[in-house]
């Protein structure tokens, strides 16, 4: 763990102090603290998926001039819950000629790395599960486990469409991982750290003007394209292209195992949106620095009430930015046609990869030339 001495809401320290005040040992207090943020983030991720599903249904309806879900709750907000309950109660079928063990393990392997990656998503200076030093690198390496789960479920289904879908998914995520990592590397080079908290802190100097999107416009576009491809969202949802592959690696799945894939893809979408906002849109930063606002209002920045407000503003800003990006992703899904598999791989290897490399080189050059603006 990094020792973080920057000011800000530190719930962990306060919680443990309170417990130690009740006569618990520091270790026991820490043990009691540990599960809290994990459960909170897990709940946040799942609720995020519910919101996402509702948004997807409503926005797709609006794009196609329909009304969308309407009767389940006000504006259909309970529709995703109904969907979830339906999936839970469906029969769980394992095809007779399928490999039962791998068939069950596949969806689990797809979901676990995505949830583990939430470890490094910061909602504030101290509002994250763990400020590990390798931060963003952990996310990149965890997301490289996912193709194995996809290959596993594609193979175990014993179905040619599933196998083709699994192979496509793995090929796609391997090819887009490289430009993605190069785009992240350019940001990391500017902030001199892999930690997500440091990456955000480096963007907090002058509010909206110091966000990385102005210094890394190309990187931002590359990252966003690659994130969409990693999430298998349209225009890159080749692994489950209905006309060609039925539903790709998901063809044989039903009930809760299918729900795991579904959950995984939506959690991944929210996670990618959150990471775009962390890497390029200033994370929890308000467009005008909260320190300035507090100064203009004549409030000390480390007063408890002000800290509470700035902490809440941080969470709201992170989620707001992420959901704006999710909105963009949904709009893209319902307005763009799907690319062909060869176009997809061409785009990844022959276009994005060279551009990402050039972007990295230019960033390095600018960092040497203008150390003030590019984090020398």
């Amino acid at each position: 763990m990094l020792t973080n001495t920057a000011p800000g809401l530190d719930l962990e320290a306060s919680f443990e102090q309170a417990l130690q005040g009740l006569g618990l040992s520091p270790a026991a207090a820490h043990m009691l603290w540990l599960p809290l943020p994990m459960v909170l983030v897990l709940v946040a991720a799942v609720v995020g998926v519910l919101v996402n599903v509702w948004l997807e249904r409503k926005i797709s309806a609006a794009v196609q001039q329909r009304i969308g879900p309407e009767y389940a709750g006000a504006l259909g907000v309970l529709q995703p819950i109904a969907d979830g309950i339906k999936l839970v109660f469906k029969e769980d079928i394992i095809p007779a000629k399928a490999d039962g063990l791998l068939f069950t393990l596949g969806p689990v392997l797809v979901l676990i790395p995505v949830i583990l990656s939430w470890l490094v998503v910061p909602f504030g200076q101290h509002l994250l599960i763990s400020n590990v030093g390798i931060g963003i690198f952990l996310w990149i390496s965890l997301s490289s486990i996912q193709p194995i789960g996809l290959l596993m479920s594609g193979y175990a289904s014993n179905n040619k469409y599933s196998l083709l879908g699994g192979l496509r998914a793995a090929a796609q995520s391997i090819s887009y991982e490289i430009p993605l990592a190069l785009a992240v590397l350019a940001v990391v080079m500017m902030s001199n750290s892999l930690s997500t908290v440091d990456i955000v802190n480096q963007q907090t100097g002058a509010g909206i003007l110091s966000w990385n999107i102005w210094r890394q416009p190309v990187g931002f576009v590359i990252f966003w394209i690659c994130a969409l491809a990693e999430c298998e969202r349209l225009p890159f949802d080749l692994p489950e292209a209905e006309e060609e592959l039925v539903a790709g690696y998901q063809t044989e799945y039903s009930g809760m195992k299918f729900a795991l894939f579904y959950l995984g893809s939506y959690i991944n979408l929210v996670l990618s949106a959150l990471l775009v906002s962390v890497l390029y849109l200033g994370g929890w930063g308000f467009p005008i620095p909260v320190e300035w606002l507090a100064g203009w209002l004549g409030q000390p920045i480390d007063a408890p009430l002000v800290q509470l407000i700035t902490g809440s503003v941080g969470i709201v800003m992170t989620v707001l930015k992420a959901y704006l990006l999710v909105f963009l992703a949904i709009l893209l899904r319902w307005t763009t046609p799907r690319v062909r598999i060869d176009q997809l791989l061409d785009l990844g290897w022959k276009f994005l990869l060279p551009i990402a490399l050039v972007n990295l080189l230019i960033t390095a050059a600018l960092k040497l030339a203008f150390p003030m603006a590019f984090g020398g």
Partner: protein
Amino acid sequence: MTIASTTQLICFVALSATLVLGALGVVLLPNIVYSAFLLGGVFLSVAGLYLLLNASFVAAAQVLVYVGAVNVLILFAIMLVNKKENLAAIPGLGVRRLLSGAVCGGLFVLLIRVAFTTPWALPGPEPVGEEATIRIGEHLFSDYLLPFELASVLLLMSMIGAIVLARRDVLSSDVITGEAADQGLIEKERTPLLLEKSPR
């Protein structure tokens, strides 16, 4: 014993058990797909052991390179070349198994002996922790620069080789001799391999 050290011990035992059992499975299972998936599990538990040793960067690199690249490529190769054919029976299989078992057992005994006779400096040097990333970078660009660059040249060479082999379909015949470009020509000892593109 504190809570932290107990957790560490449990993690160590669990990781080592999955590592050893998984590795045995990779070697002993008859189904090659299971072996490949288990290999991924073995790589992951090695990454877990690195994490226990406070080497988080190495652990993440292990996951990225071995699980994310090497293992996925192995799986790709297995799934694309999934021929359902029975291998020809090898004569003297029992003797071969016995011999290889003896060699492995001998190596194991040797390693155990080394592990028990070496005077290990306990406890070892203080773990660098989060500073490790910076230290690795410094070493890679100072005293380990040559091996680092040589490794990149090696990777480039293997990549070009792989491309030449993979794009055999557009190459029809050797420019000099006019021989057809097939596996035999490529495996023959001769330099350089000049190939002409087939008319398309």
